[in-house]
């Protein structure tokens, strides 16, 4: 959310400087992404404070943390009058708890007033024209997205909110034809869809320069349904963000009322209005214990302090007894559900940074078996002592490895990702040593003439098996590096038994036909040491002999 500084100062009689506010925001409320002389951008990614997606919500929060007064009152004066109704049919009130539609006539579409344009621009929204800008300004001020349809294009001026039929299509405002699914919530007239609810309007009902009468929509839709449609079509917008975070009926009516007033200022006339659904927000009540609050924060606050902090944030408190309050949650705080949520409110108003450190209470629990972690650490120490350098590589097989080792012909042997970032991250590695061939190559190109590296990390096999292996690669400039690598491995004292079986047909594809020695541990084959077949090395452009080893660490950890 980009918060226009000028606009904020019109809503709050700020007691401190803007600079002080910018310093305070991350300590009391939320981190900032970018601050300029025009706006303060709040870091809302994944955040649950729906109320901070509106200038009014931000103003309330800012007033609370800076001890400032609001210029505007929070009281909503509904003055929509006694008007004829429009035909609106809501198919499912779970998917659409509230749907409001206002008909406004006598409008003239044109460029917006510079003051509006500045507000929009500061908040990172482009100006379109007077009619569209009103809906965007109200979205920014109240957090309630709105949409205006050209009334002339809506058959019988009748709106039906329903799920799409199989095979239905809609050209959205961006000019793209969308194939709809039966899970997509639609705004339709009796003959056709005119918009994707909460996602994007239809091209067929777009406001044009000739538009004089609009149907203004303000509604609340099921966030999950919208999220599903939005992510399938790859459509996210300022509006969809707000729908998904959650909206309140009170703010919706405030926004609708204010929008109508703005259209009236532009010469429009409200001639019909429909409100379908319940218009009152549920006020949640949550119990709060002072003892629990102090215990969880680790400080000692008085009941008066707790009450004062919460009241600044517009919570209302009733004393239940000496220790407990019944806290009425303001309608706009959708994120508050449980006692711990309230404790967080108290803690941040007090100031997280003032909480002192206290030593760990209680006794350390009894020791559990940590052998497997120790084994890997010891092994790494031994390898480093033997002169090897530890590397870490990605858990994937690169495309070079897939083709040079012929994995592209056996993809079923590898764990595959459903949504790889690129072809380089499509398959998980099945062994450790092949990635080390790339490490050898990379460092030879940098001029290294002696390379001794190892890695201990996980390898994977279908369907979802994973285990640690030790992989080693040695390029020592000699024509028989296996000998030295064998001696290094012997020095690790892993209690391995040598198994003098021959290289099998599969291994012959990438190992020296004679220079391979396999290892057993307690009767089971766990790995081996071998020279890599030069045919493979030639594909990487490695002109020297390379020995590798790999040990499955499952029996050891």
């Amino acid at each position, binding site marked *: 959310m980009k918060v226009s500084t000028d606009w904020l100062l019109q809503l709050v009689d700020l007691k401190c400087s803007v600079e002080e506010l910018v310093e305070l925001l991350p300590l009391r409320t939320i981190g900032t992404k970018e601050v300029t002389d025009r706006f303060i951008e709040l870091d809302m990614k*994944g955040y649950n404070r729906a109320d901070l997606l509106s200038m009014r919500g931000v103003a309330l929060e800012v007033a609370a943390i800076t001890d400032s007064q609001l210029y505007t009152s929070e009281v909503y004066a509904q003055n929509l009058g006694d008007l004829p109704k429009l035909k609106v049919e809501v198919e499912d009130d779970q998917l659409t708890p509230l749907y409001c539609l206002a008909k406004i006539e006598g409008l003239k579409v044109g460029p917006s007033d510079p003051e509006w344009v500045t507000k929009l621009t500061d908040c990172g929204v482009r100006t379109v024209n007077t009619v569209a800008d009103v809906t965007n300004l109200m979205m920014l001020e109240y957090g309630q997205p709105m949409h205006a349809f050209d009334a002339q294009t809506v058959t019988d001026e009748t709106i039906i909110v329903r799920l799409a039929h199989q095979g239905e299509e809609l050209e959205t405002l961006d000019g793209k034809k969308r194939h709809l699914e039966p899970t997509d919530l639609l705004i339709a007239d009796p003959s056709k869809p005119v918009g994707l609810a909460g996602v994007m309007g239809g091209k067929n009902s777009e406001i044009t320069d000739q538009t004089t009468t609009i149907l203004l929509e303000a509604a609340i839709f099921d966030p999950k349904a919208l999220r599903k449609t939005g992510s399938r079509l790859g459509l996210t917008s300022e509006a969809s963000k707000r729908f998904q975070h959650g909206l309140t009926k009170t703010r919706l009516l405030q926004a609708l009322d204010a929008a109508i007033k703005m259209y009236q200022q532009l010469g429009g006339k409200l001639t019909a209005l429909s409100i379908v659904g319940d218009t009152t927000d549920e006020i949640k009540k949550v119990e709060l214990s002072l003892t629990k609050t102090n215990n969880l924060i680790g400080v000692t606050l008085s009941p008066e302090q707790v009450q004062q902090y919460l009241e600044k944030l517009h919570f209302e408190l009733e004393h239940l007894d000496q220790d407990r309050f019944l806290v009425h949650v303001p309608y706009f705080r959708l994120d508050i559900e449980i006692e*711990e949520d309230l404790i967080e409110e108290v803690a941040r108003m007090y100031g997280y940074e003032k*909480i002192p450190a206290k030593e760990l209470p209680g006794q350390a629990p009894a020791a559990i078996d940590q052998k497997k972690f120790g084994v890997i650490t010891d092994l790494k120490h031994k390898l480093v002592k*033997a002169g090897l350098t530890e590397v870490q590589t990605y858990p994937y097989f690169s495309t070079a490895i897939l083709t040079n080792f012929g994995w592209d012909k056996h993809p079923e042997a590898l764990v595959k990702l459903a949504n790889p970032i690129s072809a380089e991250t499509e398959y998980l590695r099945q062994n450790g040593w092949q990635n080390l061939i790339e490490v050898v190559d990379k460092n030879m190109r940098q001029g290294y003439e002696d390379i001794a590296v190892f890695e201990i990390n996980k390898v994977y096999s279908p369907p979802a098996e994973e285990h640690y292996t030790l992989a080693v690669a040695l390029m020592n400039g000699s024509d028989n590096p296996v000998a030295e690598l064998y001696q290094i491995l012997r020095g690790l004292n892993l209690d391995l038994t040598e198994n003098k079986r021959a290289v099998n047909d599969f291994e012959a594809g990438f190992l020296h036909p004679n220079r391979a020695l396999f290892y057993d541990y307690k009767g089971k084959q766990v790995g081996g040491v071998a020279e890599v077949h030069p045919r493979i090395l030639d594909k990487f452009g490695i002109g020297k002999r390379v020995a590798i080893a790999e040990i499955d660490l499952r029996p050891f950890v």
Partner: protein
Amino acid sequence: MEEKIAQIEKEYLSKIAEASTLEALDGLFLALLGRSGVITALPAGFRDLEAEELKRVGPAFNQTKKVLEKAIEERRQQVREAIYAKLADETLDLEAPIKERKGHMHPLTLFEQEIVKLFSKIGFQQFAAPQIDTDYYNFEVLNIPQGHPARDLWDTLYIDDKNPKPENGKLLMRTHTSNAQVRIMEEHKAPVRMMVLDRCFRYENLDARHEHTFDQFELVYVDRGLSMATLQYLSEYFLKSVLGEDTEVRMRPKYYPFVEPGVGIDGTCIFCKGSGCKVCGGLGWLELGGAGMIHPQVLKNGGIDPEEYQGIAWGPGLERILMLKHGIQDLRLFRNGDLKFLEQFR
């Protein structure tokens, strides 16, 4: 000119056929196509040719170049195959001395060993959770149901699962070590002091500041009487030890669905010690980790009574702290096997 080209082709084709080592072929390649190779030098003479002649010479030149390149490559392959065939005569000889080398531990391992030592001292023990995990342990039990806007915080890599088990949700590459939280509570009775150090994975395009593979460290601490003040103690204990006794540590509100209250951990900038500089963007503070009091629902999901016990989940960004400490500019250096980089650490 055409004759000259034909002459070169004939002469070198026979030389290539006679070459029996890769080195000889490399030499021939240079003699033909190197900076002053005979083929490379030819076009300089084309300028003096008549247009008519040029029409014939151009194609002939290209043809010859191609023929010679192909001949070298084919001969190279033949020589290689001859070398490969000789491998059958080589035997497994395992006698050799071990060279003197200076080994190096990976900087992440060094840091992780330091951390394990530090937290073992105050009773924390290591715990391992799978890297390929279910949606259930990675998201559901942590208050991040399907369709929750907070899922945007984790760009997730999913496994192409042939036989999905719907009760656990999709298989995925774990996005954080927090997939261990509920497993720890299921496997060990409270109180617990555990630490998880391992790889995590995200759908992230690589650049100097973004990695799709990274290490996380997380403490999971469940006991009676834990508070945000305990959490502050853990942050100070860690950051003062790792970044120096003069480091100041503060908490900030931060949202994670599986903790409540949620905490961001800041340390004073290690470069300017809090006065404000380029690295910390003039703030004097660096964001170094995330933490919080484990959400009562997550404790319940792990079979722990939140009325009796509190939990702390706490984790700094490992690579970030290492980069700050050692002035490392590029995150990718940790995993590209570059020995020049790795040899700086001991």
